[in-house]
């Protein structure tokens, strides 16, 4: 999808023009037009199985840039970085994301030095500024905007502001671990299936199709509930690694399939043939010949997968199948807060706002990165 920020800023063409149709359509983007027409998703005919006939991502070709005096001798990634630096919207939201990460990393400091209460410390009989934390009927206190109970309490008398920061940490850690799993295994599966084809592909591809054909939320909730009960091996049921692991596995095909397609294309190229006739080992061909050419696809997927993973974690936690008590995440906080939606909406809306701001800033930054790497790319992902 093409979202977010002005695109098609070209070197040496004066002012940036945004998203004008002349540039996208009748424009002079001659350098990549021939390949474009054959790979365009608008021409994707239905594949066997129907399920897989989604628009295929188009990322991964080396960024096309008109030859100009300023671009001679500059590598594609440096060019992409230059383009990204000119994209003020993406940079701004990148900064917002970094700020959120820093604030959440500093959660223990806030908990220890400002709120003086831990994230999982219950305090049902306590008072703050002369008011009790829980009313006699058990309704928690709303936002006080003082050091103690800044955003109010939850139904066990825990400090919501502290839990909001710790919950953010949990959400970000789960998203991060899931993204690492997706990137490592998605790339590996895509490389193996695409390079060896045959039996390897015949095993890996149906596996990916199977995961892909389930809605992520349903699959995640079923596996999440099941594993939250007993854990896996040494990992306890309420460990945050369980949702991270589940989310990672669910989204492996979302990277593995496009990488596989990319590798299928690359393995027919002359330089791979050259490496093969030199007697290079398949692993070396995959890692040093093919992988570098698929790197921009992978880079584009990193922010997208991070945003999607954080969102899926929120869905799972909202349905009780993600992060388990006593840990908090933005999803569990929203879920707890919805009970009080009519009286104290901030309980649900503040963690909700944090979640949306985080995912939004990752998405906008990711959009900028994708535009910078390949201005004509279209990538689709769904939760």
């Amino acid at each position, binding site marked *: *999808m093409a979202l977010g920020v002005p695109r098609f800023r070209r070197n040496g063409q004066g002012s940036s023009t945004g*998203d004008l149709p002349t540039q996208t359509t009748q424009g002079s983007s001659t350098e990549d037009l021939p390949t474009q027409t054959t790979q365009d998703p608008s021409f994707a005919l239905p594949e066997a199985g*129907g399920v897989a006939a989604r628009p295929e991502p188009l990322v991964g070709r080396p960024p096309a840039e008109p030859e100009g005096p300023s671009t001679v001798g500059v590598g594609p990634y440096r060019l992409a970085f230059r383009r990204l630096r000119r994209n003020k919207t993406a940079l701004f939201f990148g900064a917002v994301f970094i700020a959120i990460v820093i604030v959440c990393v500093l959660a223990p400091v806030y908990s220890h030095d400002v709120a003086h209460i831990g994230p999982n410390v219950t305090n049902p009989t306590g008072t703050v500024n002369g008011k009790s934390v829980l009313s006699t009927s058990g309704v928690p206190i709303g936002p006080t905007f003082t050091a103690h109970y800044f955003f109010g309490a939850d139904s066990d008398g825990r400090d919501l502001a502290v839990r909001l920061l710790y919950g953010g940490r949990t959400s970000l850690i789960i998203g991060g671990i899931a993204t690492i799993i997706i990137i490592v295994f998605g790339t590996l599966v895509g490389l193996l299936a695409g390079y060896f084809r045959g039996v390897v592909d015949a095993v890996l591809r149906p596996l990916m199709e199977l995961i892909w054909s*389930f809605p992520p939320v*349903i699959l995640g909730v*079923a596996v999440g509930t099941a594993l939250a009960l007993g854990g896996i091996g040494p990992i306890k049921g309420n460990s945050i690694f369980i949702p991270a692991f589940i989310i990672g596995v669910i989204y492996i095909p979302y990277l593995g399939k496009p990488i596989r397609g990319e590798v299928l294309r690359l393995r027919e190229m002359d330089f791979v043939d050259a490496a093969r006739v030199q007697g290079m080992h398949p692993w070396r061909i995959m890692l040093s010949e093919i992988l570098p050419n698929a790197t921009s696809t992978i880079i584009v997927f990193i922010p997208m997968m991070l945003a999607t993973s954080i969102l899926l974690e929120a869905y799972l936690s909202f349905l009780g199948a993600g992060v388990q008590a006593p840990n908090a995440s933005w999803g569990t906080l*929203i879920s707890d807060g919805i009970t009080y939606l009519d009286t104290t909406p901030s309980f649900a809306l503040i963690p909700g706002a944090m979640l949306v701001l985080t995912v939004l800033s990752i998405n906008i930054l990711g959009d900028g990165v994708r535009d910078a790497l390949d201005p004509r790319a279209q990538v689709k992902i769904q939760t």
Partner: protein
Amino acid sequence: MGRFIVRRTLSAAALLFATSVVVFGIFEVIPSYNPGRAIAGRNATPQTVAIVNKKFGFNQPFYRQYLNTMKLIFTGQIVDYQDQLNVVSEFKSRFPATLSLVIPAALIWLIAAIILGSVSALRAGRFADKALMVMAIVGVSIPVFLLGAVLLYLLAYKLTIFPNTGYVSLTSNPAQWAYYLILPWFSIALLSIGFYSRVLRSNLLDMVNEDFVRTAKAKGLSQQRVFRRHVLRNSLMPILTMFGLDFATLLGGAALVTETLFNIPGVGQYEATAIGNLDVPPILVGAMFTAFFVVLFGALIDVVYALLDPRVRLTG
């Protein structure tokens, strides 16, 4: 056409088989999963649990349990472990509520996306286009339960324009039916409109360059006719593919979050409850139900493809 139907039916059977084995297998490998104990109740004696295990066949090998369950599903006799309700009739009685939720929501987002996507492509770079760009990226960043919560708070609690939650069936009172469902419809639709219209927009802009569009213009067709009959028609395919899959999974219960939040007694709500109780039969039936719709709509979309584009032949 006959070949197409046969091959699709075979692949549907394969997918249903794989889905059922996987879902069944997930629960089989979980160490703490003990359905006999769950049915017998919290304070059951080991003897009672043993009787239940025997009655439901939980002590039989995996393949026997699987075959028995499949037999019960296809004869419509399967019951859930929690309340001993017949799962098939439960799905049947709840499906109208899911249809009431999903079909209008899907129509709202598809029609709005086609209109907004066309407007945005025709006026690319102008204000409407940029506003849509913002809407699309915000849409993919908000979980549906949060949008639902915000709508509920603003329109049901603060302004009391809409009822807070609940469901009235279409046959008992059409006006109330729509009144109760407007917020859930828009919770689902709003998030997808932006994304769908962006995809349509970029397809439209790519299509304008095509030879057949130039030919149509050269024939002297009016601007409107070229856009509607040639550009738009050919650009609809990618979003129809997306739509088929999204719609199918929503019908199968992917709207479980919305149904839970708004307390709509659809199949998704049943699945959500079953998942919470680790109640295998409804989860199993729900997964197969979803897989069925995914295959069905995959095939339907391919038929629509062939109708829209004469170059496409129906195969495999």
